[in-house]
């Protein structure tokens, strides 16, 4: 039936409701029926129960039957319903407020929610643990960390990958020079040069040479010269490294640098002989220079390099020796000590113990020294404002 028909019957009903004042006809009941309905009026309790909607279904049907015919009871219900609705709404609000928290809590543990929430939580947990693990490893990259030299060619390493292999070899690299020499000597004596590859043998030799003071000094000089060209991580596969190009530093330069070695280092390395040192330098200086050039030819990782530069720490390894640049100062590893390259052994040092009041005062006045002391472990000899400090 269309809207027009509905309008017709709507108008007819309106007219019917207004046109006839006879209550019997208006209600569609006979007079007897009206009187019977009036005699069974609902009492106040029933009317209120109906208005509040708390009447059981069978009784409600009876009440509706009566209300459809009884104008008096209907008028009472009409007057009660708005108030009853407000009361019910208030009660509902109160109940809702009291049970809101628990309902929400229960809702969280319903199967439809858990079906998606559990995998999401597990994923979040895995990601969180992974992030935590990565963040725990990151500081180690910025502190001293030695790197295994597996490359057949001598290569300047400016960073280390936080891999298990590096960490395992770092313990070997952190040995004292005497231990390293002992180890290398043992290797030699035991025929450790049994590696079939000639490049591998050369790498072993490099390691030995790098431990020599002359090589260390030469490496320092090279490192100072090529700091800006170094990349923090050697991303290119070392096995695929190009053949060594023409050396930039000749043997004379290496020899000159070797002569500048401090007497102290000569005392620490009494077993080295000049012949062996010179031979190794001749062999490896070109390679190191080539490594430097090769390193600069490979595009560096911008993110890592930027991170390293912001930290103001650079690390490289020449053969077995290490140099570092912290806060613009260059340090070489000498035993357990990091020695500023600007330091002269004849110079008197001011001993400052870490954690002491003097140390705190010093780092408070000189933030640069604080950075150095934080980045370098162990004994650090730094020249600062024409004064040499021995931080230990």
């Amino acid at each position, binding site marked *: 039936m269309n809207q027009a*028909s509905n309008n*017709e019957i709507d108008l*007819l009903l309106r*007219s019917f409701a207004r*046109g006839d*004042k006879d209550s019997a006809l208006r209600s569609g009941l006979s007079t007897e029926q009206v009187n019977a309905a009036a005699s069974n009026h609902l009492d106040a309790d029933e*009317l209120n129960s109906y208005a509040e909607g708390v009447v059981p279904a069978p*009784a409600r049907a009876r009440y*509706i039957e009566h209300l459809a015919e009884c104008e008096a009871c209907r008028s009472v219900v009409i007057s009660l319903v708005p108030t009853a609705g407000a*009361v019910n709404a208030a009660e509902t609000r109160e109940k809702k407020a009291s049970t809101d928290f628990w309902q929400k809590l229960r809702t969280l543990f319903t199967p439809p929610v858990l079906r998606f929430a559990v995998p999401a939580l597990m994923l979040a947990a895995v990601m969180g643990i992974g992030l935590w693990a990565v963040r725990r490893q990151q500081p180690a990259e910025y502190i001293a960390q030695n790197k295994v030299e597996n490359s057949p060619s001598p290569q300047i390493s400016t960073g280390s990958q936080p891999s298990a292999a590096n960490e395992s070899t770092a313990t070997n690299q952190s040995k004292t020079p005497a231990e390293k020499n002992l180890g290398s000597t043992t290797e030699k004596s035991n025929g450790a040069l049994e590696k079939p590859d000639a490049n591998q043998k050369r790498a072993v030799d490099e390691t030995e040479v790098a431990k020599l003071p002359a090589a260390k000094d030469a490496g320092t000089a090279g490192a100072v010269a090529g700091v800006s060209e170094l990349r923090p991580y050697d991303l290119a596969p070392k096995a695929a490294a190009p053949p060594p190009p023409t050396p930039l530093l000749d043997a004379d330069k290496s020899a000159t640098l070797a002569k500048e070695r401090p007497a102290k280092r000569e005392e620490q390395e009494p077993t080295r002989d000049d012949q062996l040192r010179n031979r190794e330098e001749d062999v490896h200086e070109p390679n190191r220079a080539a490594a430097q050039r090769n390193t600069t030819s490979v595009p560096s990782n911008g993110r890592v390099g930027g991170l390293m530069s912001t930290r103001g720490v650079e690390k490289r390894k020449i053969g077995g020796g290490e140099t570092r640049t912290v806060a613009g100062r260059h340090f070489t590893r000498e035993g357990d000590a990091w020695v500023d390259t600007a330091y002269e052994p004849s110079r008197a040092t001011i001993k400052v113990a870490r954690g002491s009041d003097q140390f705190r005062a010093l780092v408070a006045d000189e933030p640069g020294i604080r950075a150095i002391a934080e980045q370098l472990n162990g004994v650090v000899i730094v020249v600062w404002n024409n004064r040499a400090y021995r931080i230990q």
Partner: protein
Amino acid sequence: MSQRAEQIEQLFAAGADRLLGRAADSHALAAEVLVPRLRSAVTKYVLRDDPEASLEVIADFIDKLQADDLCLIVACEQGNQRAWTDLVERFSATVKSAARSASSNEEGADDLAQSIWAELHGFRVRNDGRPAGKLSYYSGRGSLAGWLRAVVAQLAVDQHRKQSRMVQTEEDADFDRIIQHGQEENTWSGHGEAPNPELQISLKLAGAQMQKALAQSIRGLSAEDRLLVKLYYFDGLRLREAGAVLGVHEATASRRLTRVHNELRQQVGNILIEQEGWTRVETERAFSEVALKLDADIEPMLATEQILVKKENEVAG
């Protein structure tokens, strides 16, 4: 006593204990005092319409009674003065508010409120010596505040009926004249300047037959649909208000009313054809003419409504 009756009695006793346990203030009532009240309420709301109601339904009904309100009223009925004071303090504002809603002026509201407390306490004395007030009618099913409002509204209706039997005031006479005038002006069956007396008689006859068919059709509706029609067309409620009385949403009431329109239209047509001998074409044409006539008269109808509303406001104000 049958087994079921015994079980129900046990339910009453156990329900009374639970009810007292639920009440924040039991007013030192004994469970035995509550049992007759529970029996009366269960009989009134459950067993009367469903004599075979299960014990679970009865127990559920008892457990949903308003424990605090019922204990308060029963304590008042038992003559507990503290309960009376509590009742008056807690619900005097409710009674006054209901009386104001039911009365046209403040003085009438005060009189109505006072008479309510008297009705609650009761003038007469029962056989047991206690006053026979309206308190015994409260079952605890609904809220006490709502029950008091219902008592006030019923009393107001009774008072209005008594006053209506008296001599009408001049204002009432004017009011009725306005209503009568509006109805006469807007009665589709007898309104209009019919150019032809035969046509006028024909229209009146057709209108009377349609009214009769419509009344018969309304009687054929279900009780709930009939109540909706009464609320919407006879009591002048909006769909939202009518839906609230029926306990349904406005949208549900609207859909239901549309369905009722269809049913009524169908039923009226059938009655006119089957009982009055109309043809289907005549039926359709009569509906259209009625609609046209009523549509043309809608403006004076609305004007009459405005006059009525204005008059009601003046009386209330």
